């Protein structure tokens, strides 16, 4: 069954994506500068809760590939005014595919009802092809990928009018485990979050852009590089390291 998606957003091409982990005070300065140059994103209510449910297989093939520097994330995103204690809630869901490489990313997403999103996860619904990401996602699902980890955070987002530059600050970032779903789980019942794996003490600032950065953003980028506490892997990688006990909260994963 192919279901037309009511909303479809995709990057026109690979875009630069840099993440920085900074203190609250640095983040305030950065976002103040950003607010002087970019409007608030029209699509993101300030400080709304973003809940992202990540999928992987029992062999953790998506995570292992991500650790090697290239992988496609398969995730379901929801937005709520207050923080939900469950995921895959009724309402609008965004099925997102994100192809991460060292310095760039390519993202495609479909806004659908949660019913359709669940159907897609079960392999009963296919999505229109664009960059081939949906087909890759379907292969992962056929290989047994299911929801395994969740992040929740408050996002403040600024977007240029032509969407060539987007700067976000994520506060209160939390990582949760999600028990493996069983075949007889109700199709429409939300899934309760599992244990809280970790909370991020800092703020995650992300810059995403096409082409050249404007001068003020070049300066801001340099300031963030100087001020950042560490190289920042993706939220997916951090969540999975916590989930699998491969980090104890320090900078580097534990050696095996």
């Amino acid at each position, binding site marked *: 069954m192919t279901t037309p998606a009511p909303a479809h957003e995709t990057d026109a091409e690979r875009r630069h994506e840099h993440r920085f982990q900074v203190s*609250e005070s640095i983040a305030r300065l950065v976002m103040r500068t950003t607010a002087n140059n970019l409007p608030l994103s029209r699509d993101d209510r*300030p*400080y*709304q*809760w973003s809940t992202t449910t990540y999928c992987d297989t*029992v*062999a*953790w093939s998506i995570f292992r590939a991500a650790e090697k520097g290239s992988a496609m994330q398969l995730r379901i995103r929801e937005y709520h*005014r*207050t*923080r939900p*204690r*469950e995921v895959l809630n009724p309402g609008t869901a965004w099925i997102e595919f994100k192809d991460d490489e060292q310095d760039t990313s390519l993202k495609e997403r479909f806004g659908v009802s949660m019913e359709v999103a669940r159907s897609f996860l079960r392999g009963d619904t296919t999505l229109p092809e664009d960059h081939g990401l949906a087909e890759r996602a379907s292969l992962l699902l056929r290989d*047994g990928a*299911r929801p*395994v*980890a969740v992040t929740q955070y*408050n996002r*403040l987002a600024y977007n240029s009018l032509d969407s060539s530059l987007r700067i976000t600050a994520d*506060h*209160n970032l*939390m990582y949760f*485990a*999600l*028990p*493996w*779903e*069983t*075949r*007889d*789980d*109700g199709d429409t*019942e*939300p899934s*309760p979050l*599992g*244990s*809280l*794996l970790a*909370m991020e*003490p800092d703020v995650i600032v992300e810059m995403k852009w096409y082409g050249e950065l404007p001068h003020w953003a070049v300066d801001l980028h340099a300031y963030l590089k100087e001020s950042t506490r560490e190289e920042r892997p993706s939220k997916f990688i951090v969540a999975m390291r*916590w*989930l*699998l*006990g*491969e980090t104890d909260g320090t900078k580097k994963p534990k050696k095996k």
Partner: protein
Amino acid sequence: MKAIEEAVRSDAPATRVVVVEDDQASADVLQRRLQANGMVVSVAHDGRRGIELVEELLPDLVLLDVMLPDTDGYDVCLRIKSNTATSPIPVIFLSARGEVVDKVRGLSCGAADYITKPFQAAELLARIDAVLGQARNPRVPRLGRPIERAPGERLVARVAIADPALREHVQQLLASRFDLADADETPDVVIVEGSAAVPADVAEDVAVIRVSAGRAGSDGTEMIPVDAQLPRIVDLLVRERSLDHDLQAAAEALIVLASAIGSHDRPSAGHGERVASRAVQIGRALGLDDSTRMTIRLGALLRDVGNARLPAAILTKSGELSPEERAMLERHPILGEEILSGFKRLSGLLPIVRHHHERLDGTGYPDALRAEQIPLEVRIVSVADRFEALLSDRADRPAVSEAEAVRILQSAVARGELDAAVVAALATQVRAGGAR
């Protein structure tokens, strides 16, 4: 600490408030004001202590400053709201930060209100009253679907009466409490008239109740009159019969279990109880309800009951098992299911008994089930079983610490054997120093 707890609990009608405020003078003023209004107040001066107090006292309300010496109030609020035990407690922020973004952020962290300093005491008290008035009862979390029959589920009745008018009348009476059986459905009870013969296709263990429409039984058989009381009486009789049956069956099961532990598995005495206790703790951390946790507990206790049917020599052998012996040992989940399958009220335990050695990657036994085929209750017992086993000395290896046992289980997660979320819940407990 205990004194505070006892003092607070001895004054049950009072509103119990935890104030988290780093400024001593502000905290004192606030404490006196609240106490003057009949509240019992405990004060913490940093976030860590604040969380400890909230978890220990489970107060009616938390008043929380945003700027704290060790962390910020948002972090404290999120931790309160992320703990199943403390999440229903309303939180009010008290802060000098009055920008809109601060208020939005505080409220989005789950706070019930955000009050900017300086504030008038009357306003604070009014807002506290409003928040306490609106505080909902703790919402029962959605839990894993229970795998045993729900207590309130309706019984199924079949009315085997030849007289059409009387049959319809009895069916109408019973419909208030019973589902009426379809032709191919197995009923819990069969209703027949007087001394009429029981239909040949009714199994021996199904309850049969004889009713009388005003005509007394001629052979002394006990008859239930067909009137408005019929549904209640039939319901009671069926449940009493079922209980008697289950009690008898449970007694037999316990005898088998005691025999298994006593004669074959003496070195592991106490292991079953520890596994059950640990599994229940994990279930609680994952938000499972009382009924499901009870299923987990009983399932964990009886998971190895099948060992009773294995030769003692296999269970007590210290060296490596031969392939034949290994195959025999791996039949114990099937044997356990056979032992318990006759007990209707224990049917919810059967998946745990049969599948507690299955693995998510399909390499377990006896059915080589894969991840989505293994119920959550089973995955919890599997993790608890392996964890507790690692804490005990065995012939082939010494006991390990709890932290090391968690690391070993995380390696099993990485290999695709165990549910990562279940092991994560266990790891959280171990880090916290055990279940509270």
